[in-house]
């Protein structure tokens, strides 16, 4: 984290600027003095495990919670003092669905258009566009309670864009979706900044998903522990690892050390080499000792490795046991039922 520069908070391009933000619930500091900025028309990812403070930060930015101390501003307006102006500039997809399931897709969108005072001449067109955008035109007049999870999520994203916000918040947009729907939704989301001229502020705890972000801040226990581009963050764990099998491993190790000055060692019949630019290293190795190489593979660090290195724990257990699944289900049930 030492190498990662924090963004300058005052730059004029920044549509979101947060400084020393603190939010306490009783004794617990859910957000514990965070500072960051988000540039216009980029995708910003907020990454962290359960209870890190992601939703709390979003709630402050979208004016639903008052901060305990510190400031947050959006589009130049203070999120607490000028909440009315901030609300005009934002669209949100909450962690838990906020659709009215007893209304149809079209009614949900129309409700939104009226609520945001979209003019009469524009209203119908924007609703139809949003339906097309969410690929729900043929289901427009069905009650939302008959929709699948992916359809509801798409509808919520489309609804959040009806009033042309400057910033779209997505709090765990893919939670509870199958891999196929997740991939579809991401395709849909990554196009937004260009298509709609909107800045995206998203949270997730799926590390793979954060790859689409222009910048990432990793948050744990209410504190930002690292931030930067995905590539910058990966450098924290030391770059790529190349694995080689050769006809004579011991000789190859010596040659590689001599030729490249790279760190190489042998383990379990495989040579592994740590390097910052694996894709440039492999051709060089092949050129020098190519005839003795039997196989070569390269592993890039994932954001998961980053998280592991920074916090000493996995952000999300990939192979969660059944017990953990149940715990997670209980936790998300509580989350849904403890709040207003």
């Amino acid at each position, binding site marked *: 984290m030492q190498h990662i520069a924090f963004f300058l908070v005052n730059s004029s391009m920044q549509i979101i600027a947060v400084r020393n933000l603190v939010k306490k619930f009783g004794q617990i500091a859910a957000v514990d003095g965070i500072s960051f900025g988000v540039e216009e028309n980029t995708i910003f990812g907020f990454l962290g495990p359960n209870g890190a403070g992601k939703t709390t930060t979003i709630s402050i930015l*979208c*004016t*639903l*919670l*008052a901060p305990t101390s510190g400031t947050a501003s959006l589009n130049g307006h203070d999120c607490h003092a000028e909440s*009315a102006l901030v*609300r*005009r500039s*934002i669209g*949100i997809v*909450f962690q*838990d*669905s*906020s*659709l*009215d*399931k*007893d*209304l149809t897709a079209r*009614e949900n969108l*129309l*409700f*939104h258009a*009226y*609520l*945001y*005072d979209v003019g009469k001449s524009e209203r119908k067109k924007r609703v139809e566009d949003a339906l097309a955008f969410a690929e729900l035109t043929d289901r427009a007049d069905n009650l939302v309670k008959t929709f699948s999870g992916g359809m509801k999520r798409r509808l919520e994203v489309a609804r959040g864009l009806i009033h042309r916000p400057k910033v779209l918040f997505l709090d765990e947009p893919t939670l509870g979706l199958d891999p196929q729907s997740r991939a579809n939704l991401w395709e849909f989301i990554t196009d937004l900044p260009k298509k709609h001229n909107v800045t995206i502020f998203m949270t997730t705890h799926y590390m793979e998903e954060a790859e689409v972000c222009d910048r990432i801040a990793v948050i744990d226990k209410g504190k930002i522990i690292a931030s930067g581009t995905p590539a910058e963050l990966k450098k924290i764990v030391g770059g790529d690892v190349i694995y080689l099998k050769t006809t004579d491993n011991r000789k190859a190790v010596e040659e590689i050390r001599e030729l490249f000055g790279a760190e190489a060692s042998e383990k379990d019949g495989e040579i592994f080499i740590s390097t910052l630019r694996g894709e440039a290293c492999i051709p060089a190795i092949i050129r020098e000792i190519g005839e003795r190489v039997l196989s070569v593979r390269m592993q890039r660090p994932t954001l998961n490795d980053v998280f592991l290195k920074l916090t000493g724990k996995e952000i999300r257990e990939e192979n969660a046991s059944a017990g953990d699944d149940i715990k997670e289900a209980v936790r998300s049930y509580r989350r849904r*039922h403890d*709040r*207003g």
Partner: protein
Amino acid sequence: MIEANAVYVIVMRELKKFVRERSRLVSTIARPLVWLFLVGGGMSRLVPTGRGVSYMQFIFPGILGMTILFSSIFSSISIIWDKEFGFMKEILVAPISRFSVVVGKATSGMLLSTIQSVIILAFFPVLGLSIGPLQIVGIVFVCAVLAFALSSFGIVLASFYDSYESFSVIMNFIVMPMFFLSGAMYPVKLMPPVLRYFTKVNPLTFGVDALKHLIYPLEKGPMSADFPFVIDVLIILAASLFFVTLGGKAFERKG
């Protein structure tokens, strides 16, 4: 500051959902009719009221009040459902004032309750009452004001509760006592002093009393209205203003 677009769309949503949920209409209409004909009809034989109104006629204003009380509170309590199912957040992050949300909810409660009380009012000929057109206008007006006051009161209640478990608490410990301590089932002037005190802090009492004035204006004696008509109307108007303001304030709170 009230945004007309917000009030309009909140009211439209409630009306649409009301029309879709037929079962709700059936139950809110059935309850007062059961009370009127089963309880009122039975008690009429037990309670001699002399030459004045019969007991069943006597409770008719109270039954209208009951219709309004239940449907207004029920309508406002839907805020708890909206919180529970997340839709309230969609409303709270919109660029509209909290007061518009409260006015929108109170107005929908008022419209729905008034419609239902008019349906109950249509039963007056069955009870042998004769009510003229001018009285009907007055009754609808009083029903609407009372409904607005009680819907706003319901919003204040709903702002304190987050989960639907609280629904039965509100029904058993607030709504039912309000009904029994309103002069709906027995005249306030015949109540023990302690209970009479409670009736005087209950807005429903004055709404029901105003309806008694309008429905049997000529009645004298124990079954007649308990307070002057003007006072009744002023109090329910004041209660409307008070609770809608309080509701706005309660909604203003941020965590």
